[in-house]
């Protein structure tokens, strides 16, 4: 956590000293959350994996190659996914890096998209709700995203669709009682989340 805060402070300080405002990004969207198979010791075997509806919003401070990202993802799992029976809300703070930003001239749409490919690394906190119980998880965030501008952009500004693939790696895994499983169990993390976000850079 301290390391992430330090990175954030350094990024903000760098922005301040540059005086010019970096690009800000805001976006909202939806997607799918893939929950892994979970053991079911009471009945033997395991619960099947499931695809759940996911919803997201995010903001990003974006410099030429680096960015600082804050993202919230809500997952509705309380009725469709009978083996779990809980809702998950995750807040993520991550640094982003565009490895091709300085290597490609954005003279075609494909090159613009390629130059904006980014990887994400940060921390994630998950608040998980069952009917009468809660859990709090903390972990690492791994992700990547691609930005698809709506029309050929003149600069870094404009509206675009962001396609995100992300996965948390839980370090502190709290237990939860959901009224379905006979005993409390670890809330765990989704296998992967795929999100589409309508975003604007300004």
């Amino acid at each position, binding site marked *: 956590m301290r390391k992430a805060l330090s990175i954030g402070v350094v990024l*903000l300080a760098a*922005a*301040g*000293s540059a*005086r010019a*405002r*970096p690009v*800000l990004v*805001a*976006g*909202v*969207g*939806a997607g799918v959350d893939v929950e892994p198979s979970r053991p079911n010791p009471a009945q033997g075997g395991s619960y099947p994996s499931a695809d759940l*509806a996911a*919803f*997201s*919003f995010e*903001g990003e401070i974006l410099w030429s190659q680096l960015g600082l990202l804050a993202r*919230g993802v*809500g*997952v*509705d799992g*309380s*009725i469709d996914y*009978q083996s779990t*029976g809980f*809702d998950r*809300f995750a807040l993520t703070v991550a640094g982003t890096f565009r490895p091709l930003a300085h290597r490609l001239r954005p003279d075609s749409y494909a090159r613009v998209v390629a130059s904006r490919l980014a990887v994400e690394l940060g921390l994630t906190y998950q608040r998980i*709700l069952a*009917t*009468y119980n*809660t859990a709090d998880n903390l972990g690492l965030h791994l992700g990547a995203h691609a930005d698809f501008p*709506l*029309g*050929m*952009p*003149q600069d870094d500004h*404009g*509206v675009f669709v962001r396609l995100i693939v992300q996965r948390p790696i839980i370090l502190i895994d709290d237990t939860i009682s959901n009224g379905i499983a006979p005993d409390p169990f670890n809330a765990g993390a989704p296998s992967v989340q795929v999100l589409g*976000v*309508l*975003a*604007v850079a*300004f």
Partner: protein
Amino acid sequence: MRLQLIAAWAAGLVCASGGLARAQDVTQQVDVHGFYYKETSTRVVQPRMEVLAQIPRTSTLVGAEYSLDAISSASIAAGNRVSDNILTEYRNQVGARVVQSLNRLRLPVPARVGANYLRSRESDYDSDTVGGQASVDLFERNTTWTLAYSHSFDTVYDRPRRTRRDSLDTDFLSLSVAQLLSPTSVGVVGFEYAYLNGFQQNPYRTVATAGNLNEVVPLIRNRYTAFGRVAKLLPASGTTLQAIYRFYHDDWGLNANTLEGRLYQDVTPNLDVRLAYRYYTQGHAYFAKARYDTRVDQAYTSDPKLFAFDSHYIEGQARLHLSGLHGLQFWGWFENGFVEATFGVLYSGSTFGNCGPLDPTHECADKFLALGLTLPL
């Protein structure tokens, strides 16, 4: 299930500040708001974010919004009258919309069309809404007609059994006209019609006066609303006055009247405030009774919103433009935006719900707090 109502109420408060004029005058912006709603046994925290932007070199606006309701209810609100547990749950909602100007068609008058989609998920209620809208400006934009239609597909689940329980379909139609009455005044009148067909009761609510049977209400409901609004700007004092009236009627026999007045005042070049007062009164549905005869009555309800009551809503809002941040490191990035704080209290009459004479320990005042940041693009 309950969240649908609370969210609609809270959203109505905020959207009411702009109403039709705001819907018609779409601007590019990023808007982040946080809402807090508190009533006797329920707390709702709702962050919401909306982006709206124009696709470059087109006259197409695209937008998306996300909101999350984090709700905590005392167990009695969840239908559990034995335990004192707190029920918590999330409701996620995401929406998308597109607005297209028809200027390229060289129509004789300016016109726009739009479409929207709204998807909402919570533990026992799914809702999907698709809609369309068309508006046309007449007489050098002094008159604007707007026609909108939407259809909602709702599914109700039985939370304890985790099974699908029933569905609700809603058709909504509205027609309104905004007319510039003078260089400093505008009037809006409109009519709304909603047709609801399906499961409309609360699946967890029981009716004590009907032998603790589960609530049952009719499947069909036709709802009609007529409204008018007049706004007047007083340039010398930087004041805007608004008066709003709504009349509601449905075929459940429920009539309601809403009167509202608003005062907008520029305090400084960067600060303006809004004061609002709303009075609401309604009768009762034809099947809402103090005691039921289960051998005769077909519908039973204990929903306080279907019984006669009145309410007073008082609201204050301050909006601060952030131009004062110009030149500051980091904070100066937001110099073109503004922040907004709203606080409101809804006083319901003693006949509403479980406050008043029925239970003096419960206060009949619901509180509403909203904080927001808006950044024009």
